[in-house]
């Protein structure tokens, strides 16, 4: 029988080729910058990362989760058994039966894959991916039939040479796709690169329920700042790009893509793959960047990415909302990559679009993005009698005011929060004019130099004083203080104001009445939710006001960005519609009369939507509205009471 000798030969040669492919692929990754990882423990942790962490993400889609378990599980099992049975020729009925079972399992899985691919949603890439279910079916069916004799179900040599030839063809197809393609660049590449990506992930903290969202600092003395060409990425970032399965979940979630701005996170990752391997995007089989035709992008490991491969507008369209990262079943870090490339554009090219340059200049000259007099930071609180750290040196809570201090709308949120702090008798103080912009916007715009300068000076100021916790109403500052100041010697316990107020309510330190009025929905700020996992406190607080939140279809970790993050309103890349409008439509769909938010940036963006639209209020305002002020004679605490209106 021709298969008897052909099969092992095929298996061996495919394995050999696969190995060669793997070596080649690895060398492409290794062209990236060094990034220390623990290889052994990474590899050891890989199965668990795959089976638990990654599975959590995949399981959000039950259909695909089950399909993938069947197909991938069936395949891995089958391949092991094939090697045992057909390469090493271990004659064991049990193994053969097991192989039959696993190939059936794989076949069943592949059937579902096939079904999904019959009428695939637009987010899925087509092209070779349309072939994959067939390959899976061929592979599993072929090996099922080939294994029948070994299981003793059919006699050896059944079917004659025609069948043998067909089976041989099936073996070549199946192995070619599944094993050869795994390292040479077919759809199955994801299995190989994905597994290693999980092992050598740049943010291992993300596994095991952890969270890692802070950006990594730039070495300002490096010869090139930021990522100019693919090889400027860390090697494990390049590896991560290769892990992409082109499932398009990122694309489906991306607010910029939906708004028709020239960004598609899936395409971006694929462009990175083109960049690291060299080539063009002509064969890309998914949705293009809105407004940009396929086929014109060209790249190579040592070519400047923004000259030919990716249009800078694509990078500037990102709101850094992390919806793509959150959705990615392969745990790829899109935002890191985007900011890395922005860093090059800003720090090396001086090409921050829109009002970017002006904002950065202002941050450098005045420590606030709009160029206001640095000494006017406390004007908003002239009637509040706040304690200032430079005078008191010590307080339980440091209230980080953030640049909302300069904005009339945000001042209302700040006042509401101060009113609550006072009502709860919290011992708190502010930095006053010693506070500076947190650096969030500078960093997202790629100006890590300015970010670092602000961060270092802020840390130096804060480290002079004693406080237990920092509370802020600004999720962006919250994130930066909590997750990004550590690199500069600032280690703090930082709370978002909703978390803190929720604590006060639970401890009974403030008494609340009930919210009056109609339906309320809640918009999760990206930097509070996805970046920091705080979904519950705001909702608990709203519940404490007697509000039953009418949830938007996209809420919690799937919340849609307001369009205000990542400096997007500053760079202002045109699209077909505005992200904030879409978000307001989400809110309208719930029939809400009021959108509760916990971020002044979100407030500004959502209030920028033309009326009629639901009212927008920060949770602090809602709570302050129904605060039951204690019956203590007012004269006692004259001057200490807050102000709600102006």
């Amino acid at each position, binding site marked *: 029988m021709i298969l008897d000798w052909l099969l092992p030969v095929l298996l061996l040669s495919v394995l050999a080729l696969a190995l060669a492919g793997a070596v080649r692929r690895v060398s492409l990754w290794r062209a990236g910058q060094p990034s220390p990882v623990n290889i052994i423990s990474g590899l050891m942790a890989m199965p668990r990362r795959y089976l638990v962490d990654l599975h959590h993400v995949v399981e959000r889609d039950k259909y695909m989760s089950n399909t993938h378990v069947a197909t991938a599980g069936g395949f891995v099992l089958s391949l092991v058994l094939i090697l045992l049975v057909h390469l090493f020729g271990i004659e064991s009925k049990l193994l053969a039966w097991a192989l039959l079972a696993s190939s059936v399992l794989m076949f069943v899985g592949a059937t579902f894959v096939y079904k999904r691919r019959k009428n695939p949603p637009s987010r899925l890439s087509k092209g070779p991916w349309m072939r994959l279910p067939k390959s899976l079916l061929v592979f599993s069916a072929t090996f099922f039939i080939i294994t029948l004799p070994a299981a003793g179900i059919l006699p050896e040599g059944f079917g004659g040479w025609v069948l043998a030839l067909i089976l041989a063809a099936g073996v070549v197809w199946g192995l070619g796709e599944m094993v050869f393609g795994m390292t040479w660049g077919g759809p199955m590449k994801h299995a190989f690169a994905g597994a290693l990506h999980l092992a050598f992930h740049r943010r291992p903290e993300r596994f095991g329920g952890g969270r890692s969202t802070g950006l990594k600092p730039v070495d*300002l003395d490096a010869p*090139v*700042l930021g990522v100019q060409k693919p090889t400027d990425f860390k090697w494990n970032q390049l590896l991560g790009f290769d892990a992409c399965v082109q499932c398009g979940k990122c694309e489906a979630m991306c607010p910029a893509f939906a708004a028709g701005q020239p960004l598609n996170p899936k395409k971006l990752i694929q462009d990175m793959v083109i960049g690291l391997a060299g080539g063009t995007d002509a064969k890309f089989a998914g949705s293009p960047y809105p407004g940009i035709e396929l086929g014109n992008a060209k790249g190579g490991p040592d070519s400047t990415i923004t000259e030919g491969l990716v249009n800078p507008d694509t990078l500037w369209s990102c709101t850094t909302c992390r919806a793509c990262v959150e959705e990615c079943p392969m745990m790829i870090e899109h935002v890191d990559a985007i900011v890395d490339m922005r860093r090059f554009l*800003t*720090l*090396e*090219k*001086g*090409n*921050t679009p829109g009002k*970017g*340059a002006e904002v*950065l*200049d202002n941050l*450098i*000259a*005045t*420590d606030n993005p709009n*160029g*206001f*007099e*640095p000494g006017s930071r406390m004007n908003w609180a002239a009637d509040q009698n706040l304690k200032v750290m430079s005078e008191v040196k010590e307080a339980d809570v440091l209230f980080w005011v953030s640049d909302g201090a300069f904005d009339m709308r945000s001042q209302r949120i700040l006042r509401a929060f101060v009113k609550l702090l006072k009502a709860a008798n919290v011992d708190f103080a502010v930095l006053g004019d010693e506070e500076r912009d947190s650096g969030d916007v500078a960093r997202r715009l790629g*100006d890590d*130099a*300015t970010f670092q300068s602000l961060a270092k000076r802020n840390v130096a100021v804060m480290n002079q004083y004693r406080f237990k916790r920092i509370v802020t109403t600004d999720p962006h500052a919250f994130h930066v203080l909590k997750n990004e100041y550590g690199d500069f010697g600032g280690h703090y316990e930082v709370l978002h104001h909703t978390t803190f107020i929720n604590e006060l309510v639970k401890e009974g330190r403030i008494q609340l009445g009930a919210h009056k009025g109609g339906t309320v929905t809640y918009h999760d700020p990206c930097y509070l939710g996805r970046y920091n996992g705080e979904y519950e406190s705001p909702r608990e607080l709203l519940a404490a006001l007697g509000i039953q939140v009418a949830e938007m279809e996209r809420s919690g970790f799937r919340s849609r960005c307001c369009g205000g993050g990542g400096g997007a309103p500053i760079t202002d890349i045109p699209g077909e519609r505005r992200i904030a409008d879409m978000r307001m439509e989400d809110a309208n769909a719930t029939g809400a009369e009021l959108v509760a938010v916990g971020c002044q940036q979100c407030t500004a963006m959502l209030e920028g939507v033309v009326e009629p639209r639901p009212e927008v209020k920060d949770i602090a305002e809602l709570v302050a509205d129904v605060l039951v002020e204690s019956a203590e004679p007012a004269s006692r605490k004259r001057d200490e009471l807050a102000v709600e209106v102006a």
Partner: protein
Amino acid sequence: MQPELNIVALVSVGQHPKSGRARRAEQDARAVELGLRLSGEKVQVLHAGDVAEESLRSYAGMGLKQLRVLQQSAGADASLALGDYLSEHQPDIVLTGVRAESGESSGMTPYLLAEKLGWPLVTRIADIAKIENGEAEILQALPRGQRRAIKVRLPFVASVDNAAEAPRQSAYGPGRRAQLEPLPWVEAADEVRASFDEAPARKRPKRLKMVKAKTAAERFKAATAKSQGGGGRIMKDEPPREQAQAIFDLLLEEGVLR
């Protein structure tokens, strides 16, 4: 772009109006921008002062490989050193700001240089539209957003107005890496300036109505009267064409029709 042109842009240390921090000066940066657009990286940027001044990096960050600094101590009269340097190097065009953001802010530098070099000076330019056959076509900024076209032969000195194209963003990396080349240069102490007495500017509200009337009743009337001209020409019964013509003539006479 005409890279064969030898353009020198003079820069000074600016000052942010709100924070008082040193920065690149708005007009000087526009001069550099214009220079970059005219002759690319070949533009020579020159400062007279201290090479250690950090804010010079923000000019360098506009894409300069190097920035030349005529070393001067704090009390020196920079225009002397600059004039000396320029007569030695004889560039085609010297670009400056109109007025410095720090120091005396007299705006005399371009005038002194032009006088010293014996070159024509074009003031408050918004753009250099074209340079051909040794002659430049220049757009000069006038009050009220107006523009005037001027032709002048090279070499010349020009002061760059705020109406000129805004300077490009200064990038941190190149700014760090650019070479700040200190050149020890002749210096002369500014004796006159040494006698100046400087203090923060006193607020000076614009003059309100001046009521010089002598009697109480006149002062009272002057304060409460509406602004009225009186004695204007009134056309009541003329046909619209004639009325329009009168208006039109006035517009022509006042020279507001262009």
